[in-house]
């Protein structure tokens, strides 16, 4: 399976994402610059964390209009897996590919530590290697991860099982502790925590690995059955 790691000016988790796919998963990955106009050769799209365009105006607001984003939208519409982590999640909400918005953490602090997450939905293409309700340890590193959406949107997310990860304990003010959500179709996941930073015991844990394995497993299965 071949992944595109989208690189914006100011992305800084692109190397971690590449490492997770290439070295820990043994799948193909390529860095793809933000002005690329063709993603047709990739099976999965990864939007890494960082501070694209310096977080100017709002986190993700400027990246959302980068040339590659039309292609990301097309990939999402084609049903390819699209994963946005941290700044990638912010870009996906700005682009309207996911509902809601990430605001400043309620305590105004940049929080960088490993937190406990609850897997709320293990029936997605990103989480089928986890158990429903499982608690996993994944690092967070953000100043703007306070997920906001209005009541109607929250109800919709809940009714459609679109809330994939929640924080075991509130630290950033996110609505109902939401840490990660998926689109209605189930192929676009945005999350603030960094699964690509939890892929080896050497760096403190491997709880992020099943997420990447899930994507590959699902892709293999669908490509075998359609062959």
């Amino acid at each position, binding site marked *: 399976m071949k992944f595109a790691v989208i690189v914006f000016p100011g992305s800084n988790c692109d190397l971690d994402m590449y490492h997770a796919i290439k070295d820990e998963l043994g799948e193909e990955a390529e860095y793809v610059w933000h002005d690329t106009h063709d993603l047709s050769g990739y099976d999965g799209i990864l939007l890494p964390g960082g501070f694209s365009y310096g977080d100017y*105006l*709002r986190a993700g*607001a*400027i990246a959302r*209009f980068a040339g590659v984003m039309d292609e990301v939208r097309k990939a999402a519409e084609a049903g390819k897996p699209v994963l946005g982590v941290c700044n990638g999640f912010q870009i996906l*909400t*700005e682009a309207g590919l996911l*509902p*809601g*918005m990430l*605001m*400043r*953490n*309620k*305590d*105004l602090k940049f929080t960088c530590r490993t937190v406990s997450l609850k897997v709320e939905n293990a029936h997605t293409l990103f989480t089928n290697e986890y158990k429903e309700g499982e608690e996993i340890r994944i690092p967070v590193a953000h100043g703007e991860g*306070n997920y*906001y*959406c*209005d009541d109607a949107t929250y109800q919709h997310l809940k009714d459609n099982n679109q809330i994939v990860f929640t924080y075991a304990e509130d630290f950033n*003010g996110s609505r109902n502790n939401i840490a990660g959500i998926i689109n209605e179709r189930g192929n676009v996941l945005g999350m603030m925590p960094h699964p690509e930073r939890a892929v080896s015991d050497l760096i403190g844990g491997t709880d992020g690995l099943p997420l990447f394995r899930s994507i590959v497993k699902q892709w293999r299965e669908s490509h075998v059955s359609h062959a």
Partner: protein
Amino acid sequence: MKKVKVYVTLRESVLDPQGSAVMGSLHKMGYDEVQDVRIGKYMELVIGDGERDVDALVDELCSRLLANTVIEDYRYEIEEVVSQ
């Protein structure tokens, strides 16, 4: 040529952690009269004369990029600039 002043503020329904922190500080300084603080953004745009209706154009700029209407409201003032 027109000068456009754009004000972007958080919607009333959205908590403003920065505003709350500033209000807390003002209260500590003894300014108990302050009942609320909301922090927003102010932008100035200079727009050249063209075919498009400036109001419609600015509205589009605001809703597409300058503000995120999920959490923010915007308003703007347009001033005629006399070129020298």
